[in-house]
């Protein structure tokens, strides 16, 4: 079963994301604080991370970069989900190593389609 890590501090956004990922047949772990991300990855390597940018403790760009620095980091797919929709923000996201960048508010279909692209076939 593919494992998905949802990094998001807004419970009301976590709710639909979790539902969607579970529908896709993934196991889901939720982290709402930037500082808890790296330990969570170390505990169980996810296949996909849905990463918010504006987080307590540590922002998404920073986390993204940190994950890519790790030896196993290149095998993890990272989709950034954020309200930061300016072009510079998107550029930055890709530069930090994001695989996809989706701005909020998003269409559910977009998220599902992008996730499917990076998830290993169940």
């Amino acid at each position: 079963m593919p494992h998905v890590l949802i990094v998001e501090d807004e419970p009301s956004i976590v709710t639909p994301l979790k539902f969607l990922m579970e529908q896709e047949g993934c196991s889901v772990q939720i982290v709402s604080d930037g500082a808890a991300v790296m330990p969570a990855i170390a505990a169980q390597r996810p296949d996909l991370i849905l990463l918010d940018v504006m987080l307590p403790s540590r922002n998404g760009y920073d986390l993204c970069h940190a994950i890519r620095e790790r030896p196993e980091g290149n095998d993890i797919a990272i989709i950034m989900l954020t309200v930061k929709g300016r072009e510079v923000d998107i550029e930055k996201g890709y530069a930090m190593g994001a695989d996809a960048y989706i701005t909020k508010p998003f269409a559910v279909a977009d998220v599902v389609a992008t996730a499917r692209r990076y998830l290993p076939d169940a």
Partner: protein
Amino acid sequence: MSTTLLLLVATAYVSLLFAVAYYGDERAEHGRSLVNNPYIYALSLAVYCTAWTFYGSVGYAATTGINFLPIYIGPTLIAILWWGLMRKIVRISAHQRITSIADFIGARYGKSAVLAGVATVVAVIGVVPYIAVQLKAISTSFGALTAPLQDTAAAGVPIWRDTALYAALVLAAFTILFGTRHLDVTERHEGLVVAIAFESVVKLAAFLAVGLFVTFGLYDGLGDLFQHGAAVPSIEALYTVEASTGAFADWMWLTGLSMLAVLFLPRQFQVTVVENVNEDHLRKAAWLFPLYLLLINLFVLPIAVAGLLHHGDATHADMFVLLVPFSEGQTALTLFAFIGGLSAATSMVIVATTALSTMICNDLVVPLLLRIPQLNLARRSRLTGVILGIRRVAIVVVLLFGYLYLRGLGDAPSLVSIGLISFAAVAQFAPAMLGGIFWKRGTRTGALLGLVAGVAIWGYTLPLPLLADSGWLPASFITEGPFGIGALRPYALLGMSELNPVPHTLFWTMLANGGLYVVGSLATRPSVMEQSQASRFVDVFRHAGPQGAAPWTGSAPVADLRALLRRFLGWRAADRALQRYRTRHDLKALPERADEELVDYVETLLAGAIGAASAQAVMGSVAQAKPLHIGEVMDILDETQQLMAYSRELEHKKAELEAATEELRDANQKLKEIDHLKDEFVSTVSHELRTPLTAIRAISEIMHQTTDLSPEQQRSFATTIMRETERLTRLVNQVLDLERLDATPVLDRALVDLRDVVHNALSAVRPQFEQQAITLNVTLPDRPCPARIDRDRMTQVLLNLLSNAAKYSTDADPQVAVRVTRTNDTYAVSVADNGPGIPADQQDAIFEKFRQARNRVGPQAGSGLGLAIARQIVHRHGGTLTVKSTPGAGATFTVQVPAHPPESVPSSDHEASVS
């Protein structure tokens, strides 16, 4: 007491005085001036206190109680204004090198020789009797100790045995020695001033010594002395004042008169203005001098009372200062008092004579001599000697006049009455002087008319009747008027008999003098020179230094100017002065032909030696004044005025432009800031809007697409949508709130007891606190805490802080403490929780719009606007909203607002009126 002893003591004292003056001059020559010192300066001003003060005040007090005081209260009051008034006169005189009060008046009104001359005559006529009074005091005090309690009428004594004559001669010698040692461009006499200051110390010490002896030696302190006096009804009457209109008028008129006298007496002008080396000395002198006056008057009434108790009546009250210690057998003290009286009299005579001789020479004799073409004075070499000679003769003449006046008058009037006559004479300078420094429109004609009319009336109403008193005129002159014309009675002009003689004179002279000055000034056009001088005088503080030359001054060969200066100042002084000019203007050598500025400089130097009017006349004989016709002068003036107006306009325009640029820059800066803030605002608002929108959109899409949702799932999704919709609503409301606060800067402020506001807020949150089991600790002051605040807004702030505290109360035993304290002029309302606290790096950010401290765990229901709004409200009140927190140990938010002044503690009415 033996005559020999007295003579010995007097001679010793005068010799000491010579030594002091000599020492002062020596120090000045070696550049270590004693005079450049505010204390010496203030002491020299005490030349105001003459024998009149030393002897006469006691005599006057013995008959009229405290009525001797206006003469000292007036100077005290006017000295309060010296920093403005006298400093201006001192500044003008320094710029114009004024040598006397007559010179000042002449210089102000277009360097008028006629006016200066008239002023000199007025000063001499007014002051000579005053000098006579001092001579009389010296001889009376001498007589009182050698042949006590006899009438010492000077008239009865053969001239060669008259102490007054010898006193006059010794004083003439002293004055000649130290008043006319050299001809200086500054006309300062340092040795003389030091001697005068020394005399001031002596007379004060002597008077205080007698006072202390009487009070504590003869009696058991002031209270005891006054109580002894109170047993005698005639003495007790001296302790209070009459409540009659006559006494009222006398007091006020004399206060006013002495204000003018201390400003315009020639000797006061000499020490205050001419001898002033640094105008900053006035700052201290303006209160030290009144302090001196206070001290020297402290024991006047006690000595008078003691004198009356010991001698029974007031016949010899003028000599009580000597007689009381004398009759008690206190020889040393009596001698000291005698010396004190001597110093009071001599200091006045010396300074007054110096001032008068300068005036007579500069403003009377030299201008006259210059007008005699046969003498060709301006062409003669070595004029210093001539001028000093004139002054020395003038000194002797003035003193002899004083002596003759004394003999001619006999012993009729008291010390005080003659002093007051002199005061009234110099008060005639007031309109021309005060108008001269504050009113540019005053003209020569006005000043001349006023002065002449004032002096004429003065002469007719004060000194003339004295002649009748002395038997030179029939007594009916006073009682029925000349030739029986009642309206011309000298003590009751036009039948005005309500006032006493001095106030009567003062009223009529001030009316005529001031009136004619104003009317005459307005009726005539000032000449070019008058206009120029008027602006130099009135606007003296607007110019940094002496102004440049007037454009019509003309030019002259430098050789001629040098020769002229050498003639009047001597070789060395002249060359030094020209050297100074060269250094100041950074010139290698003086030009062959002097420009207007140099000519003006030379004229000012000459003015310092021989007065403004004479200097101008002398310059006229040498400097080839431009042959200007009045038309040309007016052209120059017009041109200058146009230029000045033009440049003023340019200045003005430039200033306006600069101000506008500055404003634009500010506005631009502000716009940029606002723009930036707006960007940030929009981006944060959109961010905050996007979060709930994202949730709502995602969930509703899911619900739309997914058909097989479980009922719990549906319910949970619907709850989230509702919550996020509420959040959106709240957000929109707060944005609107914030906008409203931005748009309405006016708070609805009223005087409110801050404790009420706290109570209000607390009662609103109490249910919530109880629900969360939060312990609430409230500490309020017992006394009302009045503050001018907007009650609703402040409640809103507190509610915000309280609900934040509740929101972050995650501790097992949640506690919130609310405390109101007062420090000086501010109240501090603090709300402290024991929640997770806020990291240091976020403590600023939480007050920014939409920034919530993300680390504060707990239900994040806030929009992030609450604290931003709260802080803005507090700022509007002129207060601050701050936070202190140690992560893990809770956070304390503190609102500080200015307290309302405690004297207006709000009554219940105020509170009721608060909406």
